[in-house]
């Protein structure tokens, strides 16, 4: 633990959030939030309902624009970029309600994802004439064990398999950072275990940030946890530190006023 602390000073954060604020009507969803996330670990963001977790992801990925404050990824400011431009920088996201291209097959979903990352819009070259993309798609299909469903329309997949496909679409471009918004929400224990092991394996290749409600999952996976409450950072630290933090306990588990 001491070692990790010491290395903070040497390492540069990949994601830097400075005084970020966003209100909806009178509600401050994110309130003067400053946060730095460091590489080589799985970062988790937790907090009670309405703490501003998903709003934070929406701000990072360009779905909404902040009222004030700035977001930097590898020292590049993201704050005013559109969604697709942020994605092309290598920042990928899975959604809380799993979302893929339902009329397309698993193969086509992965194909179009990689093709879009390459900025490929050639209107005359048939899609089966891209050996590089094809190889990478087959690689990811194998990696995620989706071979059986290769030619199944995504709309006909089970919930767990859609989640796997979504992860496949996140990793196929070899992104720099993946934001997982409640990756195991609504999954069976078996599916949860599968997804958790996939995400853990990814940590070696890319920066990972997770929002998750399932505390068992968070404490099992995360190396570093930031706790949000009412749009601000309440605490951050290792799972052990968070576990023993009195303030966190009050907001999260303790008092009756807050709905965990």
């Amino acid at each position: 633990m001491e070692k990790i602390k010491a290395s903070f000073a040497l390492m540069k954060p990949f994601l830097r959030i400075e005084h970020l604020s966003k209100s909806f009507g009178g509600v401050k969803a994110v309130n003067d939030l400053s946060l730095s996330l460091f590489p080589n670990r799985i970062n988790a963001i937790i907090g009670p309902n309405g703490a501003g977790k998903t709003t934070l992801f929406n701000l990072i990925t360009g779905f909404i624009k902040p009222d004030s404050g700035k977001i930097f990824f590898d020292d590049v400011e993201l704050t005013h970029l559109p969604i697709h431009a942020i994605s092309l920088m290598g920042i990928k996201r899975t959604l809380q309600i799993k979302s893929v291209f339902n009329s397309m097959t698993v193969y086509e979903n992965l194909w179009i994802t990689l093709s879009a990352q390459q900025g490929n819009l050639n209107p005359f070259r048939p899609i089966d004439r891209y050996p590089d993309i094809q190889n990478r798609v087959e690689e990811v299909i194998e990696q995620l064990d989706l071979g059986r469903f290769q030619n199944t329309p995504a709309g006909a997949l089970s919930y767990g398999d859609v989640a796997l496909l979504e992860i496949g679409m996140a990793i196929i471009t070899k992104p720099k950072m993946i934001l997982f918004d409640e990756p195991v929400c609504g999954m069976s224990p078996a599916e949860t275990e599968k997804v958790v092991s996939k995400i853990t394996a990814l940590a070696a290749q890319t920066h990972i940030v997770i929002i998750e409600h399932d505390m068992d999952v968070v404490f099992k996976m995360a190396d570093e946890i930031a706790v949000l409450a009412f749009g601000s950072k309440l605490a951050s630290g290792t799972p052990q530190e968070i576990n023993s933090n009195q303030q966190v306990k009050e907001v999260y588990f303790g008092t009756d006023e807050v709905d965990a």
Partner: protein
Amino acid sequence: MSARLPYLGLLLVLVLAPWIIPIIGDSFWLSVLTEIIIWSCFAASINFLFGYVGLLSFGQALFFGFGMYGVALGISAFQLSFWPAFFLGPFSATVMALITGIFAVRLTWHYFAIITVVFSLIFYFLALTLKSVTGGDDGINFSMPDLFNLLGFKLSLTNSTTQYLFTLSVVVLCFWLIKVVMASAYGRSLIAIRDNDIRASLIGINVYRLRLSAFVIAGFLAGVSGSLFALFGRYASASYMFYHVSGEGVVWAIVGGVGTLLGPAIGTGIFILIREIVSTHWQHHALIVGAFAICIVIFAPEGIVGLWKKLRHRSRS
């Protein structure tokens, strides 16, 4: 190869139609077939937006009208010969689609449908008012320049077979282009946007720009059909810019099957045939059209082509 066989068969029948039709019936049907082919291209324009990008336009008649007037004014006002005039029609429709599209594709769903109606109404009334240029409801007539005139060898669209084959070639070329484009990365990106525009932007697709490009392509297709129709009737009229025309195209495309290549052509063919056959006997032929459209939408929401695919799939399994 076997997948191409039905296409080639259909094409062969269509190419030979000018010689087949006089054998089996009145040559009046050749001009009906010409009309079907022209309006198929119009329905394809609506399908390109609705079937492939998920934008339902009720304003494609605007671009049809620009195609019509491009050709008619090109010939009658600017004294252009055939090919420059035939270029001017689709070109002006495409430019118009770019200008209106910049505003229209910021919206989706019913907002998009409404703004396309509004745009087409604005220009419809403008065309009605500017009678000195457009001829208003009466329209403007022109005399047909030669297709080409080389060393005394003349070819003109005044000949109904030449007219038919010219129309067929242009429209087949358009459908072939749609087919090629939809099998490409660009086409797949459009389908991705139709399926899920949020996910499309999350994988790095510039949704606005692609929707705009599709709107421009659809405007071009409508412009081509308008130009062909101007050459077919040798006139242009503001009445073809009315949203009623757009609505008919929407019905043709939906009944035939949106999101399929030939669906719009099949829908167009059926409705124009119904009109031609029934209207000579009964003036309320629109009733049959309406009832038929309602039945299709209820019992085969994916259109005739969708129904056909489903039946074939069922008989195989």
